[in-house]
Structures are given as C-alpha cells and as structure tokens.
C-alpha cells in the first residue's frame, strides 16, 4: 500500500514539534508525548516528505497492477437532450472529442439514449461524430437515473471506450458519477481544459476552492476516463454539409430499465426573481432620459436572457423598483456580464457591482468613474448604441436558431 511512513528514533521536543506540525497544510501531522503521527486528514501531498525527509518517507505500492490501455478505444460524448432536443453542450463536446480522438487515432462516438429520438441522431454526424449509438426505448422517455445508468453501462461494456465526456449540466453531473462509480473509475468534474497524451491518458484541468485554485488531474490506471465539462467552455465545430459516419441502433434487455422513480410532472423553470441571481444584467442609469426609454433597456436584457437593474436616481424618480437598485446599501451583484447604460458610477454603485465577471460600460463622458472598473469602456451615447446593438443581437439569434 502506498503511504507515508514516520521514521522516528528519538523523542521530539515540543519546540521542534511545533515546526514539524506547521509543515502540513491540512493539519494531518500530530504530536503526542514526544511521538509523531499522521491522521486521516492526510491528503498524500508529500509535502512533509520533501521538507523533513528525516522524519517522513513516502512508500510506494509494492505491486502495481497495470491495466492494458490499448484495450480501451474511442472518445465518447454523451448526448444530453430534453425529449430529443439536443443540448448545445453536446456539440461543443463533439468538437473537443474530435480533437482528442484525432490525436490518438481513435473514433468519436456519440451515445444517444431516449425515446423517439432516432431521427435526431443524424444531426450529430454533421458535428464530428463517427458513430452514433442510439438506445431508443419508452422507458427512457423521461430522465431517470437508473435506466439511463443501465444503458450507459451496457454501452461501455460493449464498446470499452477510453474517454467519456459528459456535459456538466444538472443531468450530466448526476449521471456521470453514477456510471463512473459503477466502473470504479475516475471522474473529473467541470474541466476547463482537456488534452490527451499518446498513451491515451487524459490531462484534465479543473478549478477548485470556488475557482481560487486550478488542479491538473489524471486518471492513470483505470478506464474509461470520465470528465464533465460545462456549457460554453469549448467550441463546437462548424456544421459539416455532409453527414459522415453511421447510426447504430442498440438493444437492451428491458428488465434492466426498471426504475424506482416515477415522473409526476414537468414544468417550466421559474425565471430569476432577484438581480443577484441573474447571469446577465443590463443597468439603466441617469443617461436614460424618459421612462418610456426603459423599454429598450428591457429589450436588450431580454435578448441576453438577463434582467434590468438600475441606479438610485431612477428609483427615486419612480421609474424602477427599489428591489433592482445596485449599490452597497442596495444589492451587491456579480453576474457573468453586466452592461451599464448611461451610468456614471457613484462609489456606492461601483462597490455593488465591481466583482462582476465582465463589465461593459456605455457612457458619453470619458471621465465617468464607471470606466475605472469597466473591462470595456464604451464612450458613446446609449441612444445610438443600444438600438443598434438590439438589432444586431436579434440578427444573430435568428442565424443561430436553426443550427441547434
């Protein structure tokens, strides 16, 4: 068994013990009656073995059973969908799968499970899949964990893939760990970067500690290697005119699709109610001259799937609800994107939004303090820019729709 061993021949005095205890960032080294010990907080980071090799030693496994990686072939993408409507993260993963597969000379395989989905499968062949395995069963109509896991298991047993990519959606993050545990293999969640080595080991990079650190993770000795990736991390390939590849219908014993879950109802998601929960905010500031003009701010927010927020003067004028006021004494927000329209940026306001991921500020005054916190300072008139921006985005939306 791999472990850290303590080499201690004599009693350790308290002052020295203090120094030694400090080495471990996880507080896993203990000292009692002059004796050192390691507790279960140990993360095997081996820091102690580097800093105090006289006391700590890492002992490797005596026998390591190696698996034959060449028996595992193919890069799989799980096709995420809602009643046959394929989630766009699937196409992004196919793009990445293509890149990985080409590097090691494997195929890209899509796993598509659902009910009455056969005709939707063809689309996947336009986006880089070499093969689409389709399980079309009534028991797969709604997403339920056990039958979907059973199908996944059946597929893996038959195909023995090397890499499995699953969208980091609420479904993917429920299904992927379930399947990974069934095969006693590794799964790395929310990868932001994936690369593959010649020996088919996947190099996975993911954030931890709320994004404050990044970790590089490998699955060195088990297959398949599972990874989930969030939507909008990778890019899909351009849709190819021609569908290359084949669709392979699969069968599974219906006994295995039994479930202890009954779906009672399906409903629309509620929209975010409070501006703190919105991913995108469009902020109306004093640059908005008339109450009617809020309509264009509203429209921009709608197009972006976001919400309208405002600054204090507009609330005092009675144009907007006090609940949408951004500011230190109002609400503090940190959306993915915030577009401020005619906001000069008081101290209060900036303190309430400066941690947003991306800040685009539009204002006519190049000296407006809002530009001190903006990523993109747009010097111009909202009355010229916003309507044109709305037109452009509408155009883009129309272009995109048929593709998905």
């Amino acid at each position, binding site marked *: 068994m791999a472990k850290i061993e303590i080499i201690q021949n004599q009693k350790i005095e308290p002052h020295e013990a203090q120094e030694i205890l400090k080495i471990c960032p996880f507080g896993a080294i203990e000292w009692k009656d002059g004796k050192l010990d390691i507790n279960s907080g140990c993360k095997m980071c081996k820091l102690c073995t580097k800093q105090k090799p006289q006391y700590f030693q890492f002992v490797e496994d005596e026998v390591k059973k190696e698996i034959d990686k060449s028996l595992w072939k193919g890069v799989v993408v799980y096709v995420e969908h809602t009643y046959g409507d394929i989630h766009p993260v699937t196409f992004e993963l196919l793009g990445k799968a293509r890149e990985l597969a080409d590097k090691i000379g494997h195929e890209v395989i899509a796993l598509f499970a659902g009910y009455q989905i056969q005709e939707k499968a063809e689309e996947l062949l336009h986006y880089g899949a070499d093969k689409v395995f389709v399980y079309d069963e009534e028991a797969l109509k709604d997403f339920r964990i056990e039958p979907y896991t059973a199908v996944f298991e059946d597929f893996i047993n038959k195909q023995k893939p090397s890499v499995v990519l699953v969208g980091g959606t609420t479904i993917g993050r429920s299904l992927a760990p379930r399947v990974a545990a069934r095969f006693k293999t590794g799964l790395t969640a929310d990868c932001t970067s994936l690369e593959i080595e010649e020996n088919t080991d996947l190099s996975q990079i993911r954030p931890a500690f709320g994004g404050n650190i990044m970790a590089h993770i490998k699955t060195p000795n088990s297959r398949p290697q599972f990874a989930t990736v969030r939507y909008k991390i990778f890019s899909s390939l351009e849709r190819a005119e021609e569908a290359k590849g084949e669709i392979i219908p699969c069968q599974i014993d219906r006994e295995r699709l039994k479930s202890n879950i009954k779906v009672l109802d399906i409903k629309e998601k509620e929209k975010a109610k409070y501006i703190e929960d919105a991913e995108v905010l469009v902020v109306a500031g004093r640059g908005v001259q008339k109450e009617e003009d809020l309509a264009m701010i509203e429209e921009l927010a709608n197009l972006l799937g976001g919400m309208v927020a405002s600054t204090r003067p507009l609330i005092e004028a009675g144009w907007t609800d006090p609940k949408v006021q951004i500011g230190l004494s109002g609400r503090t927000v940190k959306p993915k994107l915030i577009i401020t329209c005619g906001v000069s940026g*008081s101290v209060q306001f900036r303190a309430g939004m400066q941690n947003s991921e991306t800040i685009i500020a539009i204002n006519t005054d190049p000296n407006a303090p809002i530009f001190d916190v903006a990523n993109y300072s747009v010097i111009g008139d909202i009355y010229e820019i916003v309507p044109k921006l709305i037109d452009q985005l509408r155009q883009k939306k129309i272009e995109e729709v048929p593709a998905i």
Partner: protein
Amino acid sequence: MSTATIMKYKKMDAQDIQYLRSIVGEDYIFVGEENIHDDYSGDELAGIERYPEVLIYVKSTDEIAKVLKYANENHIPVTTRGQGTGLVGGAVALCGGIMLSTEKMNRILELDEENLTVTVEPGVLLMDLTAFVESHDLFYPPDPGEKSASIGGNISTNAGGMRAVKYGVTRDYVRGMEFVLPNGQVMNFGGKIVKNSSGYSLKDLIVGSEGTLGVVSKLILKLLPLPKNKLSLLVPFQDLSTAIQTVPEIIKSKNIPTAIEFMQGEVILAAEEFLGKKFPDNSSDAYLLLQFDGNSKEELEAAYEKVADICLECGALDVLIADTDERHDSIWSARGAFLEAIKASTSHMDECDVVVPRNKVSEFVIYTHKLQEQYNMRISSFGHAGDGNLHIYLLKDQMDQKTWNEKAGEVFEKMYQKAFEMGGAVSGEHGIGFAKIPYLEEEFGKEGMELFRRIKLAFDPNEIMNPGKLGSNYKVNLYAC
C-alpha cells in the same frame, strides 16, 4: 434664534471664478447649476436642493489654503463636501458660494506600524481605509453603516456605528490633524502622540464641527491590532421590552460585545421581502443581535457563553450562534438592508437619531410605540441598543402632505422632549446639519448656543464656513441668502 442677522455674502463673478480656476485647474472647477452634477445640490436628506455657485475639487492642502484665504477676503461662503452621504443637510450649500469637494484627496499617505497610526487625506473612503488597514492585520474600529462615506465626512459628524459599544466613536481614533483655518493658515493639532495635555484639545473640537470652523486637510488615525475572530449571537425574545431590558444586564457583566443591536419582527419581515431571502430565525417578534471579537476561538467562546447565559436568564427563548461568514451574512445582510427595506415600504420617511442613556432605551422605544398609536402613524425603529443610539423612522405611507407635516413635526417634538428628559441628546451619530438645529437649541438653551457661536467666531470671524449650520446666529431661511 431671535436676532437674525443675515450675513451678506458676495455673489461670485467672473473674476472670482478666474482666480479659482488658476488655483485648482481647468478640469477641477464647475460653474453654475447647468454644469454641476445634481448630486452636489444636496445630501441624503430628502426634500432639499440647493446648488453652490461653483464646485471645485481640491487636490492639496495648499489649494485648500489658497481657496479659503480668497473666499475669506471676499466674503464668499464655502461648504466642504466628502461623499455627500450625510442625513441632515450638513453638506448642502445653503448660501451658494463655493462647494469644496475633497473627493480627489483620497490618498493613504502613511501606515506607521511602530506608532499604530495611519495618515490619510480626508477624501479616503471608509471602506478603502478599512480594507487597507485590515490587509496589514490592523483595525480601524469606527464602523458607521455607510461604508462609502469619506473619512473627512466621518470626522465632521463624529460618526459612530455599531462597534461604539466596545470601541467608541470616530473622535476616539483621531490622534492628530492638519487643519486649514478660514484665513488660509495651516495648523497642526495633535499628532502621532498617545498622550497630550497641552491646552485645549482643538482636534477634539474640530471632530464633529461639521465644516463650520475650517477644513481638515490631513488626518492621523489611531489603529488597533485586528482581532482574528468574530462571532455574532442572534437572541430571540418574546417581546421587545424583555429584549432591551437585557442590555444593561449584559453591559453589567463586563463581557462587552462589540455591538448590541435590537430589531423587531416587522422590520425583519420588511428586509426579507426586500432581499428575497429568509432570515435564519422567525420564531419571535424581537431580537437582540450581539457581536463579539477576539483573538482566539477559546477567548471568544468564553466571552459569549457568559453573555448567552445572561440572556437565557433574562428570558431569551434561545441564543443562536453565527460563527461563520455565511451565517454572519445571513443576519447582517438583513440588518444592513433595514433602512432600504423600510424606505421601499413607504412613500416618504423622516428619521430621528436620538441618543439616550443605555438603560433608557427600552422606555424610549416603548414611548415611540405609544406615539405610533396616538398619531396613527407607522413608526419603525431599530438601532444600537448597546450605546443608546436609536434610529427611529416616521413613515408617511398614504398621508397627505399637510397631515404629514403637522404630525411629523409634533412627533419629533415629543420624541426629542422625551429624550432630553431622560438625559439624552439630539444626535448620536448623524450630526445636526441644518435639519436638527431647532432641536439642538432646545437641548443647549440660549447660553449653550451662544457658546457655540463664540467658538465659531473665534475660528471663522467672517462666517464663510458652511453658513446656516452650527454656530450661525440665524435660523436658515433657504431663500433669504
């Protein structure tokens, strides 16, 4: 006041503006209502709008000195302004003239870790100061709710905040200052020294003088080591009076929390509604919120357990422990939103910031409940139970303007009377500005006001500094100057 001699100030002309421009530079001067951002026509006191003739941003002591000297010689009023977050009209240029903004003087000049002081310009924001010193494991204890206020503004009103219970108020942390007299003379009061028995403490007089004596151009503030841990207790009680009556018992126990706040169920509901977030407990109508700080978990635990036991003995239903950031936020974010939540729940409101001895808080709050019924007007309150400073809000709701004016006037009158009877004072931390001058007069009487006036004239014989506020010899008629 009866003898209303109104100063005649000079209307500013092209020559004055030309001179100011030569001092502060083209980009730092704005002339006339059409060019001055409307933020500068008032502060957070609703219902008043008065523009200065000229707005200037000063960038150094030297500029301040030159501007004041000129204004003094030419009888031009000067109103100093930080962030304009005051609540009593203190930074409103009642008589026009020059508005001198210290916003651009926002540098932290020196951190002296040997003397535990920080030297700053007046325009530094409280939140920036706090973040800076805390990054060096140091602590500036005054904690007024408005973190975007400037430190200069805090000095001018002697701002307090929640931690006053244990740590005192702004005045207690001013070691020294550089001060510009209206004639342009630059003075230094106090310093990095800890002790000082050298004559009148002019720095202490300047703190709380609301810009009526001159302009603070530099500050030396005292710092403490930053306590490593903090913890809050949320203590539910059956009713408010049981809750507030517990406070003197806590104080007697000598395990002083950094803050003792009281809050009522209805205000919590308003905050829940406003934030769209539930409060961690809704079992009761009245709560005390206590905060502790200390250097180790053990020290903290020892202190709070004693107090928690006292609360239980005094009838608390339980004592709930907020010991992590999330738990802290779940309480304090609601506490922080009270004012906005109350504001959002009514058409208009007016506030009173009286302070009474700590053992009278309960009696005073109960008195406001009586007034609420008597005048059929919603009166909400929350506040610093631990230091006796109450924030009481009269809500206009559906009242017409005339009824509101009458009722609010009477209610204020009664509340201040009650406070004075109890040995209280007009303002705990917001200051007097011009909105509370009549009540100040009630508190100090003729002799007191005369003393104020003589102090004012000793510093500012030409009465150019913030006219119409402390030390003026007339009640302000907005349209008379």
